[in-house]
């Protein structure tokens, strides 16, 4: 027993000190980290729902949904925070849906670790092609020129899978969340 204490006291003491140090850092920085994450989310909502001033947050199943209001308190649209598997790691995005629930008003990828230079183009102008697509359609990814009226999305060259994963997440939002938006009006 004496030998045990002699040999290991330093590890135990350091363990306790380091644990306190980490707890302190976590406590002092966690508010700031949460604020950063919230800022990215709100910025994305501003991009996918035009004219949004304030939001009311609620949950549909496991998704965070934001009811978007303009400065007069009129409903301008909905923003759904959704995520799903990607080619490399989880993809998280925000989908904007028009107030009547009939059209996608924008899509913004806020978290992805897709291949730099190929798959990570999902966070750029590529995502603009989702804007204006009817929510009644089931979206499909095709190579080459796409027809938005038929719910077609043109794949990123060299990143067809990343394009499909984003579209899968959007389809999931349209089938699972969109029909329940009307109840919240």
């Amino acid at each position: 027993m004496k030998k045990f204490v002699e040999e290991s006291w330093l590890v135990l003491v350091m363990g306790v000190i380091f644990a306190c140090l980490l707890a302190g850092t976590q406590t002092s920085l966690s508010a700031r980290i949460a604020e950063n994450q919230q800022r990215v989310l709100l910025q994305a909502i501003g991009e996918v729902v035009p004219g949004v001033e304030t939001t009311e947050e609620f949950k549909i199943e496991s998704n965070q949904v934001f009811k978007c209001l303009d400065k007069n308190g009129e409903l301008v649209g909905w923003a759904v925070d959704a995520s799903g598997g990607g080619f490399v790691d989880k993809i998280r995005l925000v989908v904007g849906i028009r107030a009547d629930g009939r059209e996608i008003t924008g899509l913004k990828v806020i978290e992805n670790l897709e291949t730099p230079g190929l798959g990570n183009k999902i966070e750029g102008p590529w995502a603009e092609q989702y804007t204006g697509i009817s929510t009644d359609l089931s979206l499909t990814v095709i190579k080459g020129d796409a027809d938005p009226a038929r719910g077609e999305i043109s794949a990123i060259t060299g990143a067809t899978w990343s394009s499909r994963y984003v579209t899968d997440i959007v389809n999931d939002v349209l089938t699972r969340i969109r029909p329940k938006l009307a109840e919240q009006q």
Partner: protein
Amino acid sequence: MAENGSNLQQFKEGVFSNNPVLVQLLGMCPTLAVTNSLENALVMGMAVTFVVVMSNLITSLLRNLIKPHVRILIFTITIATFVTIADLALKAYLFDVARKLGAFVPLIIVNCIIICRAEVVAIKSGVSRSLADALGIGLGFTMALCILGVVREVLGSGTLLNQHVLPRDFIEGGHTWVIMVLPPGAFLTLGAVVGVVNHLRERRAKGGAA
């Protein structure tokens, strides 16, 4: 290690003749993975420098208390603690870069450069020498990553620190070498840079003998 040579020399060795990446070829995982832009390379370099400085400092202060057969355990908990602190600090103050670096910040824990400095220098040397060593190694690591970061970002994206440096037609016309921001680009660039460094070292050695 005997206390030969000044602290300044120990510092210089880490940056040049004993550069962790270009000469010792350690820490290859972050070197290859996060050097697709200069910004990522710089932040990774700073994070590793912070961790190696703290780890060397604590190891050196406690060197007479650490029992030889638990030393690796002590190094590991020290490194893990400071890596976690660095990770939280990046998420709080450099959120955008932290998001790009993703899992590679927590993975600094397994960066062999850091445990190597604790084992080779800090456990046997005084505080000032250990700190000089850590700063040298940290700067050497950061410098090597930045060299790769500059080459890969300019050729692969046509930008530097997210500012356009190559003609617009080049970037928008799709003439950038996408391969440079992909993993093979990291190997190609590293190979070329290590080749140049070896060439210079060989020439220097010959020059010294003559």
